[in-house]
């Protein structure tokens, strides 16, 4: 074999096995390679190398790498909407409350001030893999309802959560179902549907970090967040 500099060229035509092949077996293996190549759908006369991006030996040759597959972009994680983006304005649903019985619009909610302290003692808890509001949670929901009745310009957001024993997206849907159950109870207590918005964090925001029933029981919860209008004349 020639020096290392020429190994590209030689390797295209010869195996690098140093043991010389007998003419018959060489012919036999060539025939087999041909059969297999045809079986694999290779084009006749295809060169026996696979050029990769950056290889300049075959001008115009398309690369075998990542063909039909996405190439990863350079690392530039997004913190905003990204240049040229339509942003949130073109999204489905922003100004589109879902008719009677629907939740307040996102525009309304996002203009309000969130108070996480007001209803801190009124959090409701759920049984494992259940979304029904328990009897002992009903007094807490009544307390929230009474406050909202006395403050007619306020609204409320309910955040549903789960313990870590479900799968992630299942928990995200279950947390939403829990928040909606609490919302249904508020509506049944006389609060307008357009005053109650729901969210779910699934298992992503546990209240307790333990891995036992004591922690899980605290994590299967619905939290009430008071939403108040921005102060009059204040900065919006």
């Amino acid at each position, binding site marked *: 074999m020639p020096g290392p500099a020429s190994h590209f060229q030689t390797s295209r035509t010869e195996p690098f096995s140093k043991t010389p092949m007998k003419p018959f077996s060489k012919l036999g293996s060539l025939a087999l*390679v041909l059969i297999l190549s045809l079986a694999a759908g290779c084009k006749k006369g295809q060169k026996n*190398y696979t050029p*990769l991006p950056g290889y300049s030996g075959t001008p115009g040759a398309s690369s075998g790498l990542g063909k039909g597959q*996405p190439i990863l972009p350079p690392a530039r994680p997004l913190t905003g909407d990204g240049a040229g983006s339509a942003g949130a304005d073109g*999204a*489905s649903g922003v100004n589109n409350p879902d008719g009677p019985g629907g*939740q307040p619009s996102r525009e309304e909610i996002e203009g309000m001030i969130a108070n996480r302290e007001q209803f801190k003692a009124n959090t409701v808890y759920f049984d494992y893999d259940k979304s029904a509001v328990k009897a002992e949670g009903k007094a807490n929901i009544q307390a929230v309802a009474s406050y909202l009745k006395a403050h007619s310009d306020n609204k409320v957001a309910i955040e549903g959560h789960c313990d870590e024993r479900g799968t992630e997206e*299942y928990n995200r849907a279950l947390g939403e179902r829990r928040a909606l159950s609490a919302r249904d109870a508020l509506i049944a207590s006389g609060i307008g549907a357009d005053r109650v918005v729901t969210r779910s964090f699934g298992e992503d925001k546990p209240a307790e970090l333990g*891995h036992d029933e004591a922690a899980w029981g605290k994590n299967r919860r619905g939290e009430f967040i008071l939403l108040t209008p921005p102060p009059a004349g204040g900065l919006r």
Partner: protein
Amino acid sequence: MLRHPIIALLLALGVSLSASAAEVVVSDVTSRAVPINLNGFAGEAKTILEFDLYVAGFDLVAPAQAQYSLNGKSGGALEGVLSDVNNKATLFNRSYPGGSARAQAHALADDVVQAITGRKGVSRTKLVFKVQKDRVSEVYASDFDGANPVQLTADGNIVAAPAWRPGRKSIVYTSYRAGNADIYSQDLTTGNRKALVRFSGSNISPAPSPDGSKLAMILSKAGSPDLWVGDAEGANPRRLTTTAADESSPCWSPDGATLCVVSRESGFPQLYTVAASGGAMRRLTTAGVRNTTEPDWSPDGKWIAFTRSRGDYFDICIVPATGGDAKVITEGEDPSWAPNSRTLVFARRTSKFGPRKLSLLDWPTGHVKDIAQVAGSSSQPSWSH
């Protein structure tokens, strides 16, 4: 050695027979790994070839046990000669000029898979997934083996369920960056992000249809988390399920005609199918297992992989797409099929309730291998198609 030409001929035929036998593997539930010996590779090339071939259903064995041998050398352009050990036939003899050492090794691994099994390799595909650190999660993408990880979001908030848009350099995912679970798309070439769906309530679990023309998702805007299907950008969503219970994790059949979705309608999570054009939800039989979530339909249409919960543990299971006996494959969560309808990426816990990491599974052989991990807890992988 082979004195009789007929024996030589039979052995030569045996090569193509074994190639077609390996093809059949996809429809069989289990199969034996193909024994191969690697010789002459070093460093990164060796590591990559061993990983890629193992998760493609090969066993790396000593020369005496090998059915195939891959001889080559690494350093400079990678070179590889694939031979059938029994009849000394050379299946190919190829060099891989250009690219990185990593790209060369993946290309060679794909050629070995193609030459021996007739299947297209998946060594040059990509993954997208969620990585959680403390209480913050971001979307990442990487090569199929976890190499070259790229952080795609840096909102310092919560993300969920990233998914590739088939055939496009674009993904969809849920982000809470606006204070609510909303669905976004992100173009991986331009970096442009677009809020697609942000109704009040939850907008979660986006699943682009195989032809990219529709987006399935779970929306709670009608009072319960239901399955909705909108156009490619999520607009004009149409409600497909109307249960009072929560639905979650939709996925599409490859022809786009049917969706598989989880519903808790019966009081615990089960898999259902529903026509994309609308109609009744039909229970998918998963005999032998219950509490089933996170379905993913194989690209060849034959199988649905999913997660079953048993108490504090989760298992990856596979069932025929028409329903039937479910097979429990290995402990883990949230499987996503590779384009070859054979390899799966999934999440598994490093300890009970510990952080998750991503692994690959070649389900016919049961081969499982962890991919390179990003620091944090990695979950919800989606394989590029």
